């Protein structure tokens, strides 16, 4: 079973979380009329077989949005941080 480390609540089963998709995408600036950029942001995926950065919300815990690292080829979980902290150092 996939275990996700929540910075507030500790190691928890992934069923306590809601998946939020690829966290490596950068949204185009508000007001941008570049339809190709919006299309790429919304619809295209790198879909890597390996390291992946993704959003999870701890809906059955602290309800915080997290950014977690996971290897999609092995499901090995990596570091986790709060999404509201912005870009990782």
């Amino acid at each position, binding site marked *: 079973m996939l275990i996700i480390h929540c910075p507030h609540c500790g190691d928890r089963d992934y069923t306590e979380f809601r998946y939020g998709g690829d966290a490596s995408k950068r949204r185009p600036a508000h007001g941008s009329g570049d*339809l190709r950029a919006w*299309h790429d942001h919304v619809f*295209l*995926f*790198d*879909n890597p077989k390996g390291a992946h950065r993704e959003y999870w919300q701890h809906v059955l815990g602290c309800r915080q949005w997290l950014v977690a690292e996971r290897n999609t*080829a*092995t499901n090995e979980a990596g570091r986790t941080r709060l999404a509201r902290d912005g870009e990782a150092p």
Partner: protein
Amino acid sequence: MKNRYSALALAQHALTGKRWSRAWRAAAPRPDYDVVIIGGGGHGLATAYYLAANHGIRRVAVLERAYIGSGNVGRNTTLIRSNYMMAGNTQFFEHSLKLWEGLSHELNFNVMVSQRGQVVLAHGPSQFDVLARRGNIMRLNGIDAELLERGELMRLLPYLDYSDSCRFPIYGGLLQRRAGTVRHDAVAWGYARAADDCGVDIIENCEVTGFVREHDCINGVVTSRGTIGAGRTVISVAGHSSQVAALAGLRLPVESHLLQAFVTEPIKPFVDHVISFGAELFYISQSDKGGLVFGGHIDGFNSYTQRGQFAKVQNVAECAVALIPSISRLRLLRHWAGIQDMTPDGSPFMGRTPLANLYLNGGWCYQGFKATPAAGWCMAHTVAHGEEHPLVRHLSLDRFLQGNGHDEYGHGNWTYKQ
């Protein structure tokens, strides 16, 4: 056909002890082909067969990284049906079902098509209305559909839970009698044998590691067994569409997710239809060996592991017992996960790509197996003519840019919610 299968041939071989020849040659790659198909799954093999049979294009190679039958063609729940509602889907899947109906004769290979009928359940009046609408659209397209009320269902499927205390009481259902199951391994073997007989080279243990690219044109593939020139190249690799397309520098509207399936220990004939639960994504049928086959929803996050999460095992078992309480003591014998390429609207991509002479057949979400014959048929037409077959024009790779998403289920643009 060099080694035609028939009752007479079976008797002759039994009496004389003559050995059967290989169903397809172990072909070595030639320097170049008219068409190279990446992926020796059901779709790739069907595409190769129809290229030769329908369009006379026989200098075709199918490149398979592992062995024939090792991928999703053997990792599904073997269902075939054509009870779709959106224009485009309705006609495409009906074309597929018609091809299934004649496939054993077409291929001279018994793929064991069993039209046992599929029932989709409704658990309330509003859901029943939706099924009625779907059934009406099917019938307007000449597809069989029967709306069944609760009393009719109790006679047809007496083993479901009709008690007053169940969480999702059964209200009615939609029956497609022509739907059913197929022996999935035989589909791969049958298409491989028939394609080989037309002159197609089926090359196993041959992994594609790159493309031969000149400006915006693809002229061949680089493989673990050397470089192979190709007039036209087709990507038909199911859950690895993104990986192979990336070798050509393409980024796809696709994410790879796991779908699990389950088989119980065998029991005597009991479930003689395919039944879809209406309260969750769950369906059940019984295999010819007696095992009950369960299918559920995807795990919910992208992964290439081919190992499902236990939470989904529990969820599927709960659905099974909610629907048929009498099977609660059955043990699960096997379970497996297939990697499927999920798209933002739940519909696949078939046709040309931004690169000349490169074609894509991918993004099949849950629907790949039942689509096999029609996908091969339409892909062969598309490659032969350089233009999409009319049945798949709505499945273009740039449809999101045009605002033409094709969302049968209306779940929004999340791959993991389709």
